C-alpha cells in the first residue's frame, strides 16, 4: 500500500518537475530571443545582418568586436577607459547606496520615529521627477563646483538616484516592527547586543532583499545614458555613451551595436549570477514562537 503511494507521489514529483522545467524554458526563450539575436548580429557583417532569408549558418566575424575594443573602423574612442569608469562608478555607487539605504530603512522601521512615514514619503517623492528635468540644474551645480566630467559627480548622482528604491525595498523586507523587536529581544536575552542581534538575526533574513537591491542599483548606474551624457566629456565618460556612438549620421552600425551590447551585458550577468545565490530562503533559526 505504502509502496504504491510512494511510487505515485514520486511520479507526481517528476511530472511537476518536468512541468516546471518546461515553463522555465519557455520563459527563458522569450527572454533570451532578442538577446541571442543581438549576439548573432555582433558576429555578422552588415550584408549578412539584412539578409532575407536570414543567415543561420555563417562564418562569424570578430571585426565588430575589434572595432569596439580597439577603436578601428570609425569607432575611435578609449574603450578601456570607459569600461573602467563604468565599473568604478557602478560598484561604488551600488555599495554606498546599499549601505545608506539599509541603515535608513532600519531606522524607519525599527524606531517609532514620529515622522517616519513622512520621511519615507519624502524619499519616494524626490525620485518622482523625471531625470530630464534634473539634468540642466545638475549640470550647473557640478560645473560651479568644478566637478564636471569627474567620477565623483557620477557616483553622487547614481547613489542619490538608487537610494529611494533601495530604501523602500529594504523597508519592505524588514518584517513588521513587532517581529523584529521580538527577534531582537529574544537574541539580546541571550546576551548579544543590538549590533550582534542585527548581524546574526536580522541580516540573514533580509539577504534576498540586499541581493535584489544590489542588482537594481548596479543596473541603474551601469545603463544610464542621459546623466552621463550631460555630466561627462572625455575623462569620466561611461559605457552607455560608447554604446550610443553606433548611431551615426548614416544610420546604425548594427554589428558594432551587437558587439557593444554583448560586452556591456557581461558584467551585469556576472553580478547577477553572484547575487542570485543569495536569493534563498533564510531560516529564522527557531527564534519565532508560534
Amino acid at each position: 500500500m505504502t509502496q504504491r503511494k510512494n511510487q505515485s507521489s514520486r511520479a507526481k514529483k517528476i511530472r511537476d518537475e518536468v512541468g516546471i522545467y518546461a515553463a522555465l524554458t519557455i520563459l527563458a526563450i522569450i527572454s533570451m530571443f532578442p538577446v541571442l539575436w543581438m549576439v548573432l548580429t555582433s558576429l555578422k557583417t552588415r550584408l549578412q545582418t539584412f539578409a532575407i532569408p536570414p543567415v543561420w549558418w555563417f562564418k562569424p566575424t570578430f571585426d565588430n568586436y575589434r572595432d569596439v575594443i580597439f577603436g578601428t573602423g570609425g569607432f575611435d574612442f578609449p574603450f578601456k577607459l570607459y569600461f573602467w569608469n563604468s565599473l568604478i562608478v557602478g560598484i561604488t555607487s551600488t555599495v554606498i547606496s546599499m549601505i545608506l539605504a539599509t541603515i535608513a530603512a532600519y531606522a524607519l522601521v525599527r524606531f517609532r520615529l514620529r515622522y517616519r512615514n513622512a520621511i519615507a514619503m519624502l524619499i519616494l517623492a524626490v525620485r518622482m521627477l523625471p531625470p530630464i528635468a534634473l539634468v540642466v540644474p545638475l549640470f550647473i551645480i557640478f560645473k560651479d563646483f568644478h566637478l564636471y566630467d569627474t567620477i565623483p559627480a557620477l557616483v553622487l548622482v547614481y547613489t542619490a538616484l538608487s537610494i529611494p528604491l533601495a530604501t523602500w525595498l529594504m523597508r519592505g523586507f524588514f518584517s513588521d516592527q513587532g517581529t523584529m523587536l521580538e527577534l531582537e529581544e529574544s537574541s539580546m536575552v541571550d546576551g548579544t547586543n543590538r549590533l550582534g542581534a542585527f548581524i546574526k538575526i536580522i541580516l540573514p533574513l533580509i539577504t534576498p532583499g540586499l541581493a535584489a537591491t544590489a542588482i537594481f542599483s548596479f543596473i541603474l548606474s551601469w545603463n544610464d545614458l542621459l546623466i552621463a551624457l550631460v555630466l561627462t566629456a572625455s575623462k569620466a565618460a561611461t559605457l552607455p555613451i560608447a554604446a550610443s556612438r553606433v548611431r551615426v549620421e548614416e544610420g546604425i552600425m548594427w554589428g558594432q551595436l551587437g558587439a557593444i551590447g554583448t560586452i556591456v551585458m557581461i558584467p551585469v550577468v556576472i553580478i547577477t549570477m553572484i547575487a542570485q545565490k543569495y536569493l534563498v530562503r533564510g531560516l529564522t533559526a527557531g527564534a519565532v514562537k508560534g
Partner: protein
Amino acid sequence: MLKRTGFISLMLLLLLSFLIPVGSFAQDNKLVFVVSAGGSGRTLTAAAREFEKKYNVKIEVLSYPWAEARDKQILDLSSGAGSIDIISVEHDWVGLMYHFLVPLDADTKQNKDLIPSILDGFRYAGPKEGNKKLYAVPARIGTWILYYRKDLLQQKNIKAPETFADLSADAKSLTDGKTFGLVMPLKQSVFIVSQWLGFLWSNGGELLDANRQKVLFTNKRGIEATQYLVNLYRNQKVVSPESIEYEHDDLITALQQGRAAMAVTYSPYVTEVSDPAKSKFANEFAWSSHPYNPKYAKEGHPLIAGWGVGVNKSSKNIKLAKQFVQFVGSSDIQLMLALNNQNDPTVASVYKNDKFKKLSPAADAVLKALEGGKWDPSFPEWPRIQDALSVELSNAFSGKKTVEAALDDAKKDVDSILGWREK
C-alpha cells in the same frame, strides 16, 4: 558602534572615489571639439588631426550621435561654461546657436575659394539685427541628388529621368514586384520633410514668404508637388510599401540590398552605397541631378544641407579656435578631405580638381545641384515647424488625410508657431 564604523567606512569610500582624476576645463594650447558621429565626424576629426600635426596643438575630439552633439553643445554654449571651444554647426543649428558664437566675417573674408552660396547658409541675422553675420566656416556640404542603378536602367533601355514625368514613368517600368522604382523616407521624421522640400521647390513652390511670416506651401504648386509624391506611393505604387516606416538609414539599406532602383537622397550617402562591404550593388550606382517640373522650373531646386565649424564665445582659446576653423575651410584642407575622406567640399577649386572628379563620380551632380539648390530656413522655430510638417506629410502618405487636408492642418500648426513667436 555600528553607526560609527559605518560612518567611517563611508567616508573612506567617498574619499577613495575622490582621488580619481578630477576634470578641468580647457587649458592653454588645447582645444575641445565636439563632432557628430558619422560622415561629418570622421571628416572633421581628420581635419583636427592635420591641424594637430601642423601646429603642434592638442585637439580633443568628442564624438556624439547627431542629436546628442547638438544637445551637449547647446547646453555648454548657453551656460557660458566654455568647456567646448570649437562647435560643429549644422546649417539647421545656426539659428539656435548664433547668440553664443563668435562672428567670423573678418577672418573669412580672405578665403575667396569658399563658394558664396554655401557661405550664405551659415550667415544669420537675429530678428532685430541688421546685416547677417557669418557664424561658422563651411566644412562639408551635401545636397539631394538622384541615385539610380545603371544596370537596371540599361536593362529597360531608359535614360536617367530629368523631369517629374520622367521620374514617374521610369519608376513604373522599374517596378516588378520584387524591386521597386523608388524608395523614400516616409516615416514621420525630419527626413520626410527634406525629401519633400526638394520636390516642392522644383515645382516652383515655396515654403514661407521672405519675411517668414506667411505660409506659402498651401498654394496650387505646393499641393501639386505634394500630390505628385503621394501619388507615387499610394496610387502608382512605384515606391516600396515599407517606405512608410523608413528614415534615411533604412533607405540606404534598401538601396544597398537592391530593394529599389532609384532614390532622391542626400549626396554623402554615395560612399555608403558604393562600399562593397555594405552594398550588394556597389558598382552599379550612378547619379544625376534632382528632377524638376518644366512647367514651373528650368532645373532642379534641391535642398542643400551642410556642416560648418564655429567658435564658442565663452571659449578660453578663441584665437587658436579661430585659427582652426579657418584651417578647415582652407583650399588645401578641403582638397585633402575631399580626396581622403570623401568629403563634399565647400570650396570651388576642389570641384575643378581632376583627381577629385575622378574619385567622386557624383561630383558633377553635386555641383549642378549647388547651383539651383536652396537652404532650409534655420531660424529657431524651424525644428517645431519641421516636426509639424513631418506629422502632416506622414498623414498624407499613410492616407490618413488627403493632401489638401494635411497641408491645411500643417498650415494651421505653422501659423500658430509663427504667431506664438510674435509675442
